[in-house]
């Protein structure tokens, strides 16, 4: 009996349902082929919806919240008893953090070129199913801090830029 909210997986797929980055926390899908089948089912089931804003569905006793932008599809899966809004806060955190990290240029090509950032981002959001952080600017700043390369001013620039975007994002959400 575990009452703590838990995340079963985080998926980032492209517009054909192929993996960009995925992370599974639950043992519901023990093999890679089962994982791929799940991704395929999720993708086909949600493909028809446009999901420019967030959307939600149920599949195999799981709740899946999702959001699409350009050719990227973001999914977060939780158990059927999970609080939908908790799952959604994770999705929102992931979605916005990726937006900050890719400097608003959220598309597959950019995501693959910055795959290290995406992977670190997922790592900062959930640890073994437990939610670590859902605030997009905190997540992004944690990931971005890591790209400080003391010797390289180029990377320095990246971090200040990322922080600026983070700040901008923060003010935007305050203005809303």
């Amino acid at each position, binding site marked *: 009996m575990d*009452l703590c909210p838990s995340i079963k997986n985080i998926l980032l797929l492209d517009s054909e349902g192929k993996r960009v980055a995925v992370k599974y926390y639950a043992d519901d899908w023990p093999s890679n082929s089962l994982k791929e089948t799940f991704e395929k089912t999720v993708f086909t089931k949600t493909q028809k919806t446009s999901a420019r804003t967030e959307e939600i569905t149920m599949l195999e006793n799981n709740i899946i919240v999702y959001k699409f932008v350009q050719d990227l599809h973001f999914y977060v899966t939780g158990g059927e008893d999970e609080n939908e809004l908790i799952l959604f806060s994770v999705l929102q955190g992931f979605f916005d953090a990726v937006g900050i990290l890719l400097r608003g240029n959220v598309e597959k090509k950019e995501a693959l070129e910055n795959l290290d950032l995406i992977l670190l981002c997922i790592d900062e959001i959930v640890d073994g199913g437990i939610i670590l952080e859902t605030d997009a600017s905190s997540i992004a700043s944690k990931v971005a801090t890591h790209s400080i390369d*003391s010797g390289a001013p180029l990377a320095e620039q990246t971090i200040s830029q990322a922080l600026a975007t983070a700040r901008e994002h923060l003010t935007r959400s305050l203005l809303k």
Partner: protein
Amino acid sequence: MAQPIVKKDDDRDDEVEYSPFLGIEKGAVLQEARVFNDPQLDARRCSQVITKLLYLLNQGETFTKVEATEVFFAVTKLFQSKDNGLRRMVYLMIKEISPSADEVIIVTSSLMKDMNSRTDMYRANAIRVLCRITDGTLLTQIERYIKQAIVDKNPVVASAALASGIHLLQTTPEIVKRWSNEVQEAVQSRAALVQFHALTLLHQIRQNDRLAVSKLVTSLTKGTVRSPLAQCLLIRYTTQVIRETAVNTQTGDRPFYDYLEGCLRHKAEMVILEAARAITELSNVTTRELTPAITVLQLFLSSSKPVLRFAAVRTLNKVAMTHPMAVTNCNIDMESLISDQNRSIATLAITTLLKTGNESSVERLMKQITTFMSDIADEFKIVVVDAIRSLCLKFPLKYRSLMNFLSNILREEGGFEYKKAIVDSIVILIRDIPDAKESGLLHLCEFIEDCEFTYLSTQILHFLGNEGPKTSDPGKYIRYIYNRVILENATVRASAVSTLAKFGAMVDSLKPRIFVLLKRCLFDNDDEVRDRATLYLSTLGDGSVTETAKDVKEFLFGSLEVPLTNLETSLKNYIQDPTEEPFDIQSVPKEVKSQPLAEKKAPGKKPAGLGAPPATLSSTVDAFEKLLSSIPEFRNFGNLFKSSAPVELTEAETEYAVNVVKHIFDRHVVFQYNCTNTIPEQLLENVTVLVDASEAEEFSEVGSKPLRSLPYDTPAPTFVAFEKPEGVPAVGKFSNSLRFIVKEVDLATGEAEDDGVEDEYQLEDFEVVAADYILKVGVSNFKNAWETLGPDFERVDEYGLGPRESLAEAVNAVINLLGMQPCEGTETVPSNSRSHACLLSGVYIGNVKVLVRLSFGIDGAKEVAMKLAVRSDNEIVSDAIHEIVASG
């Protein structure tokens, strides 16, 4: 919307070469990983290589043991670099590889150094990595640092340590439990997520100590928990405490309810939802308690956010199963959701409406649904079909329009699962609503005239064979069945032949005609079809209008004595070593093996999917009946009357978990003890329950069924049967102890030692009470049913119940005592009312329908008086009900 996406895909084909991972190959990347060994590390390059490796793993590529080890050792070299970004990737890589114990030692010192670094990010991540890959022995070395980290002033470090603690508690609880003080301090943290993680860990450390959890909840619900996530958690813990205390005291005022209600006004929607859901799931929730929760959910229904609408309608859907009246206020909002863009929401709205609808709104709803059905996917349609089935069972008078709806959608396009759901529904309706039988059978006949699914055709033919002969004009089905013999594939033909034979055997007047048809089947080109026809022709007599002998019917259509799965394994074994001896059916074991496992899951399982209806009571009784009749010793006990809910006979988390299900027969009771062995190192054999029935005078033990072996974590039943006077609701108390032979199991090989030790384990007592002899069966119109039964065997009497805590508590107590089904929502007592009327219905042992009218009154001194009026078909039963109350 699909258009632009497709177009984009076409463009992509040209762009594809821009992917940084195009043509990536494992071997090449592993070669590239050699740069990790360079004396002058190029941090950027190394980071890129790690990203590539992670990309491969992420795409499902796997490394062999050797490759993983090589990568791991190479990666450890990178700790020399001072580059933060690279270090972060190194952490990620180590977690992904999950090195073996002897490899972990290599990185331990580097990670421990990082754990004490001044950089917060190093500390946080090093802890997470180390805790992920470490084992118990190493943990004691680093325990000191983790304790420090838990109270670190940087929230990221504290969260990392706490989250790691939550994971470690699963593997090394004894160590993590020592961190209690630090965790408690962290609960007071100002950082939202630290508080959330600390609360999670603290609760998990204490979860087996009810008092401590209760204290924790009491203190926190008074204080201010800042983070919404932590608040949600606290709500969950609170409901758990409520659940556990509610069992002990059934007072009117629920502890902590005020806290939950207060959360409905929280500023975070997440918390509001959690609280609303918690309130709706309280056991025996009253209308007054429900109202504020329903109100906020109703507001959510018109939210612009799909997630919120979904959450609200899903919760209301669940409430509708138990308190349909409470949800009716939201019906207007719900009807507008039928056209919601999100089909999950629309389907949930429809099924909720189907549950809350009253008899008069059925037609209108069906009209709305018909248009809705055409544009949703099969899986949603199945949910709707299930909901319509339960609606039809609720309002049997409306079966015509609902049956019509089902037959219409049966004719439309649809996949196998969907069609199966419809056919199953029609079959259930035919079984439960006698008036619907003839029309339902005809709908099914029409369906098999044009059915592409062999499985469904054969199922329907089988069902037709059982039900068709019992109708007023069995002859009219023959044409449909014989058409199958002419038109279908061999499987369907064979089952059509069997169905024809059933008609011949059951309806004597049809026999000559059936014989003509069966004779034609002798020329079929399939062996099975010919064989069946020959068999039936030679056993059913000479084709004249004579009654078929009973033993012939039994031989042809009776059920098999052994479970099919057992027969299958026995036959497989027989084929494997061929002998001259013919197969002997007596050698097939009659024990049902895997059944109890599925059984245990079923009741505990929450209603699956989109508002699927809860498993009906009858279906679990069916399962029990099947299970019991498979045991030869109990087979002659007759029909199973009632199976009680499982009663726990052990505390949670003991070595052996046992619960008992009481099966009531006319002259017997059978106790099914479901045992679970929770010790991996033990195998129990020859498990029996020793029952002391000295406090149950009317019962005498007649037999038992020991459990041959009980391996770890595989629940299995053992049975004890008692005889009791026929039709008498004998009551009594039983004390039990579990007896078994313990054998040690070597965990490495999984094999048990040969010698065992006999042992005994004391279980708690339980009682057979009067309520066990009454089935909860509702009636849709109590007044009609009451009038129909008439006053012939009415018994009325008045009782003083003495001082009670509240009227609601008194009503509840009487309902529980009688074990009958409250009708028309009369089990809920409005607060502050001085009197209350309650309607109950049920079926008494011997299949006697019983209706009860209760009138309660309470005076200033909380003295409760009750008038009890009972009607049934049998005065003895009416008296027996009074007897129950008088002696209770």
